[in-house]
């Protein structure tokens, strides 16, 4: 087959992939995702597990080590068949936390620690570099097979230039379809569909070659069975340690390989898809492995001694003259290599840009989260990372010379990425796993792997000197890289696997036991371990944040793009019941936004960027204390509010009482007005009547005298009433003239008793007095004070309803004030009336209408106020009791 036809068909195939990816992207952009995200596509995309290492290398592996190669596919089979145990949880966490890579998952689980992200990224890049080199090598080798097989003697000009063309083309494809969008979740529909197509191509190619070999060359399955038994492969012996170890390491790798994580969790992780893949993916692996041994056996039989078994897939059909079949096989191998490189470099570029470039960039330009175009920077850094990863792979290929057997390189990478497994599983199921523990485990495992497997893989004398191999570093025998702690003679791969993972796990567990996780770590730990218990429930807690929605919007636009960011914010605003584009930056919203951004730039970077706006890097204990402090302040404030509220209630009650009193007074005033008219009218009526009789004349003189006396008395009553009213108004105006002088209380009381005895003189009162205590001189207006006393004594005489009425008068002097109590033994004044007795026009009963119009006590109150004292009712004294308080020395009021 002409070589340029091969190149042409190769280019046509690549063009086909381009158009498939392009159409898928366009379909997705129009929102018609549909079957682009089906379990079928998902399962096929998982097939990137089968790289060129599988396609070419498995046959070589089988030719060298018999059935051992199946362990590489049986491990993943067990993991997928048992998806309910681990993968389901991983998928759920990936969706909930919007994980972008395995480094992001580890970083996110352990408190969004960027250090862990960097370690995992570094590990992944180191492990993946030879793996990518392996793909370049296999493509170059396959080109070489065709070139040397051409009748024209078309010698391949330069292996290196082939590799560089391949690497360049892959970089272009990856950049075109892998970094087009920076979606919330790192999904690349075009790439995924292209990989699915490639998965079909490689399966069909392998099955076609297999069927040709079994039925075309071997003469059917039964015949083949005999040939296998007699072939050199049958000399293979199962090594129990390697068998179990490879089952384990391949199972670990299928979870931890960056590209597997990318397609399994990041691109389209969904439980429904996972359920289908749980059996479909193992079935795919089974079909891929089914014809490996037959091809190896027949290849060993038919091909000349010394032929490279890694290339039997191509050389066997070519030798049998099946050019078209060889072409198909070539495309299958090409597909395997390209799909792996594309996805791997996307996964690695995401990790590098999210965990290495972005944090450094943010640190160098802290304000850039706001001002710069983050979106552009992220995409640029990803593109550069893709180029860098492929360049590394190419350099590794150039330096290593591409001589090592394919299988060996693949296994070294497997052991490397398996170092993530203890931390991953521990983080998923053990809440006590800490960041420090994870870092210790990862670094330990990484170091042991590098030392015992990676560096020795370059051969003695290359990376490590021969002396180190034989005597250990510095002559320390138990540190020999392939006989650590004196365990010599073991298979190097198994030796490294056991020691690296054992020390890794031990460091992780022990350090975790002795360290204390930070608050974010603990919250993330709960969110991961209990992912099925509570959906959502952001563990971030931006409760104390003071984020400006506008600043958040600006930043989100930089990452998600204008339209997407505006749509997101508008939707949130609508949900909050607001118009426009700016929702309130509620803690829930900010936490959701962080997860959304984490889908683009990784958890640690998103956290850092949001922190710059919200103004808080992490939730530290100080923060929690500050929150507690704030809470205390709020509680205090609410207590103050409570006090104020009570005060208000009290005031309102007082107002209500005052209002009641006013209403009552108003009623009384009305009653009094009618009464006073009546009071005025009664004497007026009798005066008028008697005076009319008198004017008629013709009356006996004694009757005239009698009528005249009545008229006189009524006139006096009127006068007294009017005097009282006048007196009261004078007192109330404060314009009364006081006649100050020294007076003896005892004499004043004597005068008052004498005057009051005219009131109801028929009643006999017993007066209790303590004369010595009354012997006090006060400076006051004696006449006014006597007026008060008279009033009180008269009231007692009038209203005391006891059968044997008594009146007790007690005088006390205290602190410059004198109190005089008048207590009788009657029924007293009911409580509801005590408040109004001092008001004008108050009269409790009409039972005894001995003069007065209810003005007495009101006048007393005004008098006492003018004298600088008070008059109060004393409740609970066994009768009506009044206390008059007055100053010992009354000063003349300033006018």
């Amino acid at each position, binding site marked *: 087959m002409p070589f340029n036809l091969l190149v042409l068909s190769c280019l046509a195939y690549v063009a086909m992939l381009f158009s498939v990816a392009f159409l898928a992207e366009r379909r997705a952009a129009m929102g018609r995702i549909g079957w682009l995200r089906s379990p079928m596509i998902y399962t096929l995309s998982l097939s990137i597990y089968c790289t060129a290492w599988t396609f070419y290398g498995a046959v070589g592996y089988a030719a060298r080590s018999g059935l051992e190669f199946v362990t590489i596919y049986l491990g993943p089979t067990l993991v997928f068949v*048992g998806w309910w145990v681990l993968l389901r949880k991983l998928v759920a966490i990936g969706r909930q936390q919007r994980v972008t890579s395995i480094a992001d998952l580890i970083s996110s689980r352990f408190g969004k620690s960027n250090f862990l992200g960097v370690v995992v990224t570094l590990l992944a890049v180191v492990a993946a570099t030879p793996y990518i080199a392996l793909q370049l090598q296999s493509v170059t080798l396959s080109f070489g097979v065709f070139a040397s097989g051409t009748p024209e003697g078309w010698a391949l000009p330069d292996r290196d230039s082939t590799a560089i063309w391949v690497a360049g083309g892959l970089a272009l494809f990856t950049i075109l379809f892998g970094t087009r969008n920076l979606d919330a979740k790192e999904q690349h529909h075009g790439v995924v569909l292209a990989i699915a197509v490639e998965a079909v191509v490689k399966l069909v190619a392998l099955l076609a070659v297999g069927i040709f070999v079994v039925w075309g060359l071997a003469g059917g399955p039964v015949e083949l069975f005999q040939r296998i038994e007699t072939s050199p492969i049958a000399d293979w012996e199962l090594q129990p340690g390697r068998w179990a170890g490879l089952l384990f390491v391949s199972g670990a790798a299928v979870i931890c390989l960056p590209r597997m994580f990318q397609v399994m969790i990041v691109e389209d992780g969904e*439980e429904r898809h996972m359920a289908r893949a749980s*059996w479909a993916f193992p079935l795919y692996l089974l079909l891929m492995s089914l014809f490996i041994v037959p091809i190896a056996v027949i290849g060993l039989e038919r091909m000349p001694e010394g032929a490279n078994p890694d290339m039997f897939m191509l050389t066997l059909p070519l030798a049998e003259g099946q050019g078209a079949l060889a072409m198909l096989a070539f495309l299958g191998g090409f597909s395997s290599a390209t799909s792996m490189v594309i996805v791997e470099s996307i996964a690695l570029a995401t990790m590098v840009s999210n965990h290495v470039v972005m944090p450094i960039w943010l640190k160098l330009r802290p304000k850039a989260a706001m001002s710069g175009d983050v979106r552009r920077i992220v995409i640029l850094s990803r593109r550069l990372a893709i180029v860098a990863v492929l360049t590394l792979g190419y350099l590794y290929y150039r330096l290593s010379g591409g001589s090592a057997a394919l299988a060996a390189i693949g296994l070294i990478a497997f052991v490397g990425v398996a170092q993530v497994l203890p931390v991953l599983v521990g983080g998923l199921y053990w809440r006590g796993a800490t960041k420090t523990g994870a870092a210790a485990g990862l670094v330990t495992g990484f170091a042991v792997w590098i030392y015992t497997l990676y560096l020795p893989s370059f051969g003695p004398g290359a990376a490590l000197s021969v002396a180190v191999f034989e005597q250990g570093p510095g002559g320390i025998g138990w540190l020999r890289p392939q006989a650590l702690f004196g365990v010599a003679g073991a298979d190097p791969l198994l030796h490294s696997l056991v020691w690296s993972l054992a020390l890794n796990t031990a460091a992780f567990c022990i350090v975790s036991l002795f360290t204390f996780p930070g608050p974010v770590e603990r919250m993330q730990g709960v969110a991961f371990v209990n992912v*099925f218990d509570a959906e959502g429930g952001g563990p971030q807690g931006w409760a104390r944040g003071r984020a400006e929605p506008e600043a958040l919007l600006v930043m989100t636009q930089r990452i998600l793009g204008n339209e997407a960011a505006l749509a997101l914010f508008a939707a949130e605003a609508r949900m909050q019941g607001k118009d426009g584009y700016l929702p309130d930056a509620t803690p829930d919203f900010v936490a959701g936004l962080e997860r959304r951004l984490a889908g683009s730039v990784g958890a640690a970077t998103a956290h850092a960027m949001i922190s710059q706006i919200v103004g808080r890097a992490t939730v530290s204990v100080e923060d929690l204390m500050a929150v507690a402090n704030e809470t205390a302040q709020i509680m205090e404030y609410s207590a103050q509010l409570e006090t104020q509220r009570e005060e208000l209630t009290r005031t309102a009650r007082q107002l209500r009482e005052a209002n009641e009193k006013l209403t009552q007074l108003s009623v009384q005033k009305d009653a009094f007005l009618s009464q006073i008219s009546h009071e005025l009218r009664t004497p007026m009526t009798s005066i008028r009547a008697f005076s009319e009789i008198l004017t008629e004349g013709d009356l006996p003189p004694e009757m005239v005298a009698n009528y005249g006396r009545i008229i006189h008395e009524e006139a006096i009553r009127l006068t007294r009433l009017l005097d009282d009213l006048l007196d009261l108004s004078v007192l109330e105006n404060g314009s009364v003239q006081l006649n100050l002088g020294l007076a003896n209380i005892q004499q004043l009381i004597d005068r008052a008793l004498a005057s009051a005895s005219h009131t109801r003189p028929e009643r006999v009162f017993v007066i209790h007095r303590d004369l010595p205590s009354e012997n006090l001189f006060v400076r006051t207006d004696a006449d006014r004070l006597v007026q008060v006393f008279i009033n009180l004594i008269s009231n007692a005489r009038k209203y005391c309803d006891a059968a044997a009425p008594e009146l007790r008068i007690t005088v006390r002097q205290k602190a410059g004030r004198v109190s005089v109590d008048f207590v009788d033994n009657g029924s007293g004044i009911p409580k509801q009336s005590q408040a109004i007795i001092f008001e004008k026009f108050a009269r409790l009963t009409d039972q005894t209408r001995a003069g007065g119009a209810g003005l007495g006590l009101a006048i007393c109150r005004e008098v006492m106020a003018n004298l600088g004292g008070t008059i109060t009712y004393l409740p609970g004294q066994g009768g009506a009791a009044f206390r008059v308080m007055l100053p010992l020395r009354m000063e003349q009021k300033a006018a």
Partner: protein
Amino acid sequence: MKRARSPLFLKRDSYRKRRLRDGARMLPVFGLFLLLLPILWAPAETEATDTARDGLYLFVVWFGLVVVAALLAPGLAGDSSTDEGEDR
């Protein structure tokens, strides 16, 4: 005692569902056992070349796992975290 809290007679459907999940958890364990079994018929001791038969055995087990997983998968999918009770 979680067992004591749950009712004695569970709904038939949810009971079956739980056992299905138990099965899904056990499947990889059974699979691992069957795949490690070839270690026992220590190949070094038998002179007979049995690579083909070993291969046949492995592929039969492999296919069996695929079939069982395919039978379990429809029952497991879809009821993600509805009643992921502790009592299983």
